[in-house]
């Protein structure tokens, strides 16, 4: 690509080289990576819910509530995907208690992400910018995990997750554009 990254006008991830990738070794099964992704989405959901509680501006609060609801949809999708690949019957509650629950989609803990934003986010636009940054790093993580894994079925799961994130980003992008246009 002529001009390199400076010429690029699309999504940009600022994830570190090893960020999040340490979560997989490469030989995980589809069930294992879906459980991992579910834990990541659950942690992100809790992160956005935490931001809902902290936001003083109602429009900012609404933006975070929408983002938290989107993460619930992601978890629902992953649960449905898990049921198609898992052997044996488990309840969703049993599945949830055994997932990775302490990392965010970009491999950082909630505290580490919040520490990057010492000046509290007050405007809905800032909330959306934060969400787009996190979701872009998620997309980056899932794509790189797909390339690292040696199991083709597992790789396919990661690519599906990446496509989900792309759809989510498009939706966020539309909300962001409408927000900017209205200000």
């Amino acid at each position, binding site marked *: 690509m002529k001009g390199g990254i400076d010429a690029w*006008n699309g999504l940009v*991830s600022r994830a570190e080289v090893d960020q999040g990738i340490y979560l997989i070794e490469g030989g995980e099964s589809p069930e294992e990576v879906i459980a991992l992704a579910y834990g990541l989405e659950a942690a992100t959901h809790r992160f956005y819910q935490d931001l809902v509680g902290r936001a003083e501006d109602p429009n900012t609060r609404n933006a975070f509530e929408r983002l938290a609801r989107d993460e619930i949809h992601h978890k629902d999708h992953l649960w449905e995907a898990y049921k198609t690949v898992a052997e044996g019957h488990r309840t969703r509650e049993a599945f949830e208690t055994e997932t990775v629950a302490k990392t965010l989609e970009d491999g950082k803990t909630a505290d580490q992400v919040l520490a990057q934003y010492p000046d509290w986010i007050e405007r809905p636009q800032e909330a959306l910018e934060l969400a787009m940054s996190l979701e872009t790093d998620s997309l980056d993580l899932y*794509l790189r995990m797909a*390339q690292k894994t040696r199991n083709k079925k597992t790789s396919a799961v990661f690519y599906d997750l990446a496509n989900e994130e792309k759809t989510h980003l498009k939706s966020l992008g539309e909300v962001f554009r409408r927000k900017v246009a209205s200000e």
Partner: protein
Amino acid sequence: MRFSDLFSQIKTMDADESRKWLDERSEGSYTLLDVREPEEYEEGHIPGAVLIPLSELPDRLSEVDPQKPVLAY
């Protein structure tokens, strides 16, 4: 695979052409390669880009799937 093989059919595209090229392809059907240094990569990279610094590329060619087209930047 030899280092020279990686660049035996090179086409230069601008950013818009590159985006269109990526959008036309399904994930997993190509390799997106970032040949800069780690600190540059972490300042910002295209999501999904694999980092292999240019200085290391000859020794790490085995990490690049020869069956897939490569978009490098």
